């Protein structure tokens, strides 16, 4: 690892460490005066802090599934096993972050809505998304031939990727529900960040989004490299 790469990794550690520190330690007050004070969001209070972590996990889910779709398309165009590896590594990470978003959201729902799970449109849509990508891995494990598996799962990754924006951005917004940003939200149907977050919250929120995105690309890179080592060890060293 050279100096720059080392510095970037340490930088990410510090960056997300500071995000965690600010997101949790800054006090919420009714009438914020100082730069580090968060406004109290009615009905949420300290529970609003979830948005610094829960929303970025959902965001990374979307990126990961879209990256998986892009490399699925690339595989279909070039038939390079490396693209399949990138696609499946990203889909796996997407499923992991999707699961994290579901669990963090469910715990939050217990304390804010009174039950872990009550089939809110947002909960329903993320559950379907988990099923869609669970089926992706079921499909992969069911096909023996490597080329056939790669081609089939690339097609499936494209079809599944098309549904992601619908389940994340559209369905929960047009149906009325309890999740912030749902249709019928008394303060408008836009995402919560547009009208409820103050400047300091927005800054930390976007810093968190950026940090989580870099973290995703790092883990993805590690997974792809492990996959390549695996491929290289099973086959002669001359394969790409």
């Amino acid at each position: 690892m050279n100096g720059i790469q080392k510095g970037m990794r340490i930088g990410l550690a510090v960056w997300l460490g500071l995000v965690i520190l600010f997101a949790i330690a800054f006090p919420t007050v009714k009438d914020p005066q100082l730069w580090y004070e968060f406004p109290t969001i009615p009905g949420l209070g300290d529970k609003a802090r979830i948005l610094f972590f829960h929303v970025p996990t959902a965001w990374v889910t979307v990126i990961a599934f879209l990256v998986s779709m892009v490399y699925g398309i690339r595989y279909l165009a070039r038939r390079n096993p490396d693209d399949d590896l990138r696609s499946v590594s990203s889909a796996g990470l997407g499923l992991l972050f999707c699961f994290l978003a579901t669990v963090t959201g469910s715990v939050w729902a217990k304390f804010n809505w009174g039950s872990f799970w009550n089939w809110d449109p947002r909960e329903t849509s993320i559950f379907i998304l988990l099923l869609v990508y669970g089926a992706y891995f079921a499909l992969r494990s069911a096909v023996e031939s490597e080329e056939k598996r790669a081609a089939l799962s690339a097609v499936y990754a494209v079809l599944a990727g098309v549904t992601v924006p619908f389940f994340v951005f559209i369905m929960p917004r047009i149906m009325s529900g309890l999740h912030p940003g749902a249709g019928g939200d008394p303060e408008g149907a836009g995402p919560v960040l547009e009208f409820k977050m103050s400047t300091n919250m927005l800054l930390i929120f976007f810093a968190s989004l950026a940090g989580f995105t870099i973290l995703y690309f790092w883990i993805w890179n590690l997974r792809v490299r492990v996959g390549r080592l695996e491929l290289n060890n099973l086959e002669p060293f001359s394969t790409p």
Partner: protein
Amino acid sequence: MDGLYTFLNENALYIVLLIALLVWAGIFAYLYRLDKKIRQIERSLKRREEK
């Protein structure tokens, strides 16, 4: 015991903060070591390939 309970009750937010920071430090250290290990294996495989 009572004092500890009151302390935890009043500082819940900071305890959450501490746990979150510890979890992040753990995840980061794990990824960092993994990255280093993968790089070492990549190098040794490359050397073997060149021989």
